[in-house]
């Protein structure tokens, strides 16, 4: 499942996508993110029939992604994002 967390407002689209087919809930993204955007839940909240842990975007961060992720996204010379680098399963995508 592609879980799109975030929002669209007048200033743009701000979504982080977690591919739950790939995510194994290891928590590396959680450790790598300086803003603690990610959390690991024991059960996928959007699929109660799935077993095993999964990474989600923490509830209190979902409506603030533009600001929370901003320090990792300078306008010039953008380094790779720590969350995407940390994810061995290649399960994380940013829309902006």
């Amino acid at each position, binding site marked *: *499942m*592609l*879980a*799109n967390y975030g*929002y*669209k*407002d*007048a200033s743009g*689209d701000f*979504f982080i996508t977690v591919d739950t087919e790939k995510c194994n809930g290891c928590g590396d993204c959680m450790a790598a993110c300086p803003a603690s955007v990610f959390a690991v839940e024991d059960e996928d*909240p*959007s*699929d*109660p*029939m799935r077993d095993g842990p999964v990474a989600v975007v923490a509830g209190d961060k*979902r*409506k603030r992604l533009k600001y929370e992720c901003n320090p990792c996204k300078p306008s010039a010379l953008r380094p790779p994002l720590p969350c995407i680098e940390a994810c061995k399963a290649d399960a994380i995508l940013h*829309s902006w």
Partner: protein
Amino acid sequence: MPEDKKEFWRWAESNWKNPDLNWEDANIITVGVDVGSVSSQAVIMGDGKMLAYGNMRTGSESPKSAVNAFNFALDALIDMPEDRMDYCVGTGYGRVNVPFADRPITEIACHARGANFIYGPEVRTVLDVGGQDIKVIQCDEKGKVTNFLMNDKCAAGTGRGMEVLADLLGVSINEVGERSFKVKEEPRAVSSTCVVYAKSEATGLLRKGWTTEEVLASYCRAMAERIYALIERVGVVPRFAVTGGMAKNRGVIDRLMPMVGLERMTTTWDTQIAGAMGAALFGYALCQKGKGRKK
């Protein structure tokens, strides 16, 4: 004497009982309660079949509205005791506030499951326009979510926005859809769907001499465009279905469908109860899987 202020936004609350089924014949009775930001629904199912539902306004207290909606559905059944229920799942905005629920499940999962039940296994894309958020969900033939997006940060293009406009224009919420098509020429969309900005823009347009119908059309078009922008992110896979209160508003949905380029599926069910239906079905699935309540 000032005349009584009419509440134009107020929609009809309803409950229903399945005349063909008797709750006493059911093995497992599950309840789904969907406490939304604007409306609350309770669905009672016996072995995964609809027994009854109740649909009412949420009000200011989520736990109370959950109880009210459940009692409203029980009223329809008349003689079923409250404690006959085997399992209850809470969903929606206030899912953690349902006092008698065994567990909460997110509305994403429940809406996909509910739409699968209402519209059948061919449904792949579900648009749910609720009171305060918009969800676009793709699901498989079993109603399992494969891709989803929920915008609950901004109430633009949602049911509550429509209620505010109906109240401003003095048009009953049930008539908004029909009346928005009574225009000679389709007007441009209002420039912002933000409820606050759109309301002041509508006031401005009225002062400029626009008719009520033109303002309605203009706002409905803006909402359709806004909803489409979110649908585009997830993509559309046929067949396409709409749930939630906005499915009853032709003004927005009939303007949206040409943008989507598909026919929408139709149903005789109340589209507002999809979430609660999904919750009750999950309750049944959990009971069958042995994950039900420990007795």
